[in-house]
């Protein structure tokens, strides 16, 4: 069974929020900058908790940040 892919718009959202740095986003959601880099490169699929924290950091809904593709 092919694995579902979860894409995200973190890079665009950072840009839309006054070009928020990866470091700043990381410190707001309580993770490392390396995790933000891995997320933007599609190399990491976060936990539900971290996904919600990221959405709240941008003030948007979860689905505006993460898109689920089957």
């Amino acid at each position, binding site marked *: 069974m092919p694995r579902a892919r979860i894409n995200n718009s973190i890079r665009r959202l950072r840009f839309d929020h006054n070009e928020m740095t990866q470091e700043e986003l990381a410190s707001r959601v309580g993770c490392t900058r390396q995790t933000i880099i891995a997320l933007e490169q599609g*190399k990491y699929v976060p*936990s539900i908790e971290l996904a919600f924290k990221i959405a709240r950091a941008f003030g948007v809904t979860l689905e505006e940040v993460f898109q689920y593709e089957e």
Partner: protein
Amino acid sequence: MTISQKTAWAQLGIFGALVISWVVLFSIKGTVFYWQDDAMKMTFYWFCAAAFAALVVMNVVATILKSRLNAVTDERDRSIFRKASLWATGTSYTVVVALLLVLAITYMDSGSETIPVYFPLFIVIVGGVTLTLTQAITALLLYGRKVNHAES
């Protein structure tokens, strides 16, 4: 590079050096029965003790850094560490069981009912080294892997 990644590289460096030192030691002496030569036996044990002491020191330093600095590790590091530990435990367990079986069969075939006391100690050391090396290699592979899932 996160502190966990650096720790994995250091772990690989320490135990990679230990394995290389074993190869050099055994190739100089030309025998696997290292305990038959007192100097070689002590060198072998000192190398092992130094590697495990370095591992302890490294982990203490890493723990202090993690507690003092803010958000130096997160769920991705923990997820990778958990997966790497599972792989390492399985691999070292398999290696230890395989070595014990080979040892028992070899001695049974030769008609002996006694095994030199050095063999079990050697197998424990090999098990520990396998555990540490597999954990470091798996963690580094997972950090470079295409996609990691937090909840799988």
